[in-house]
């Protein structure tokens, strides 16, 4: 018997479940973490993974969560961390004082030299990217 449309729920695809997507992202992150900065491999891997995710995000191949039609006044709270970060990044970038008054990138570089930290950063980047694709 045919079910009414509003009572049916689309079953999630197998690859769309966290049990599948998380291990895939972990594997990609471990591979990405092996490539040093400025290497051809790191550039190609960033281009490849990012390119696939952008392609998935711009096509209709991945189901998306419904987006809010409008944001309330509470959204203004997000300006607080954005402005604080923007002011520090802007001032440190303009002054260009090197390690004496470093930009966020300059502070992150030594941390990202460690392979495990680099893999964790890869995972955070890919997981957030996957989250954006699903939105």
């Amino acid at each position, binding site marked *: 018997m045919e079910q009414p449309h509003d009572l049916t729920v689309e079953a999630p695809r197998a690859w769309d479940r966290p049990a599948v997507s998380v291990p895939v992202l972990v594997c990609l992150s471990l591979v990405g973490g092996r490539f040093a900065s400025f290497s051809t491999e790191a550039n190609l891997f*960033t281009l490849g993974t990012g390119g696939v995710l952008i392609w998935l995000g711009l096509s209709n191949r991945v189901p998306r969560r419904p987006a809010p039609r409008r944001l309330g006044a509470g959204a203004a709270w997000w300006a607080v961390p954005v402005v604080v970060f923007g002011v520090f990044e802007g001032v440190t970038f303009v002054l260009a004082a090197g390690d004496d008054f470093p930009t966020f990138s300059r502070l992150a570089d030594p941390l990202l030299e460690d392979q495990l930290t680099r893999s964790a950063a890869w995972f955070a980047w890919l997981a957030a990217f996957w989250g954006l694709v699903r939105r």
Partner: protein
Amino acid sequence: MMRALAIGGFLTALILFGVVEWMARREGSRIPTLGEVCAYVMRYEVGPVPVGRIGLFGFWWWLGWHFLAR
């Protein structure tokens, strides 16, 4: 001294991101989560072109390339 100021400033910003996200996830909160803000931005289209999606994907890809490949 200036180095400590920069580190403190960036740490403050990161902590503030976490605090606002935590406030947004509380029951009955009127603050949207960061994901909801991103989803709203990605709804923006100019004609058939999903400008919001392209812009946010481009920014996020650049961020990863900047930190992980450059």
